């Protein structure tokens, strides 16, 4: 640790570079974590919207309402009129986008919002949807499966991007810690020479460098997690209501095992980079 203290400027600069690299990885993981949670939520939302035809009268709607309640796995049915649908769309959006404000009320079709049991399988839901589409008062049935599928694709893209980013960060950490250690080794070549002359084994000579690399990598990852946490809670306090309204859930920070894993990865990469950098110590 003597080396860390004596060359603190070098190590602080190096740690700052690592913080940037790990912050990129952390941000990608944060996006993946929240997309995954959203996908899970939407996949198990247990909701479907039965859009009614414009000519469906009150009698048809009531009959359909009552019939749906008798279907196994459907646990609730709620009628949403055109006016209510427009109101749900959001007054604010209508005000912000003037062209939407001009839309007629019947631009938002009335619907029956149904809640299905959580244990309903995809096949059973598809069968119910198919039967409902045959009914004369029903225009269309939306199960949000399309959105869930899109989200799943987005999620797999995010996971892939995170994987690529992990490799990039791995390379960055190896390069940054490796360069720092080589520079430290160069600065301390007399120290190394003296150690070898007094009978220190290679492991003994390498150990402080490996320790410094471990601390550097771990500190870089920890700094990134701390930075992301600060930014996340700063931003979340201002926009979480809007985000929750938009996607139906509040964003969450990285779960602690993942954050801990990132710090461990940083430390391990730092140790590896240092070990690779000082693998040859000369023969004197």
């Amino acid at each position, binding site marked *: 640790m003597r080396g860390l203290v*004596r060359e603190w400027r070098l190590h602080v600069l190096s740690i700052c570079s690592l913080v940037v690299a790990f912050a990129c990885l952390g941000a990608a993981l944060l996006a993946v974590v929240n997309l995954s949670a959203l996908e899970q939520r939407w996949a198990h939302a247990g909701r479907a919207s039965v859009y009614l035809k414009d000519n469906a009268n009150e009698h048809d709607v009531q009959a359909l309402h009552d019939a749906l309640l008798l279907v196994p796995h459907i646990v609730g049915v709620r009628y949403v009129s055109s006016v209510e649908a427009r109101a749900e769309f959001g007054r604010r959006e209508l005000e912000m986008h003037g062209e939407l404000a001009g839309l007629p009320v019947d631009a938002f079709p009335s619907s029956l919002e149904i809640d299905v049991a959580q244990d309903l399988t995809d096949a059973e839901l598809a069968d119910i949807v198919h039967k409902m589409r045959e009914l004369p008062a029903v225009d269309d049935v939306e199960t949000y499966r399309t959105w869930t599928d899109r989200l799943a694709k987005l999620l797999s893209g995010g996971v892939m991007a995170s994987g690529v980013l992990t490799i990039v960060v791995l390379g960055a950490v190896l390069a940054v810690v490796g360069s720092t250690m080589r520079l430290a080794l160069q600065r301390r070549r*007399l*120290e190394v*020479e*003296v*150690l*070898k*002359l*007094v*009978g*220190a*084994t*290679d492991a*003994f000579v390498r150990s402080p460098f490996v320790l410094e690399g471990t601390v550097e990598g771990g500190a870089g990852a920890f700094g990134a997690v701390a930075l992301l946490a600060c930014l996340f809670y700063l931003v979340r306090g201002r926009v979480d209501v809007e985000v929750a309204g938009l996607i139906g859930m509040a964003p969450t920070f990285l779960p602690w095992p993942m954050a801990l894993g990132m710090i461990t990865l940083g430390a391990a990469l730092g140790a590896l980079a240092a070990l690779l950098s000082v693998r040859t110590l000369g*023969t*004197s």
Partner: protein
Amino acid sequence: MDLPERLRPMLRAGGSRFSRDAASRPILVFEGVHKSYRHGSPVLRGMDLVIERGEFVFVTGPSGAGKSTLLRLLYRAELVDDGRILFLGRDVARLREDAVPFLRRNLGIVFQDFKLVASWTVYENIAIVLEVVGLPQRLIRTRVAEVLERVGLAGRGEDRAGVLSGGEQQRVAIARAIVGEPALILADEPTGNLDPQLAVDILGLFGEVHETGATVLFATHDRTLLDVRPRRVVVLDDGRAMDVPEVVEDEYDNRLPL
């Protein structure tokens, strides 16, 4: 205070223990040692030399005669091209790479340029010898305090090595060389950077170390030091070692091919 037997540095290779038979052999034997850095101009050509335990030997010769090379071969910074160097009965050239640190723990080496880490304290520069063998800190503190007193630097342990004078730095280097109680002390032009009076003082210090039973191999090209302390003198000339017989003082200068 002597080190406990189990903590004394031992020459080991591949897990084999220090041989007690080695105590009856010469501490150092050079047999037909050849070393060349450039083709056609060998530094050492079939050098033979035997050094017994407890000897103080000056190795002298003109610049480029191979004095430093001889020492570097001994502490395995270089490898012989041919021949053998037996230290405590073991061929240094044939030691495995992982045994070299154990060889060096049996040697105390003093250099012309001191080789002290300027940013370390005097204490740290000396204590490192005992730290690498894993001695407890309490014992290290005691040993370092003892050797600092022996070299006349008692109470200077906390000073940075970089702020010391040349003579003081060389004393620290000698303290570092003797703190581990090595079997052999190698000095490579240890007075080369010092003024004549300091050089004599430092030589006196080596003499004191020798009187405690250490074997000393002192490489120098400074003829005045040979006059100060008449000892066995080995001259390196034309790649070979030649013992200079003890002579009366007025004949001395004429016999040295320097």
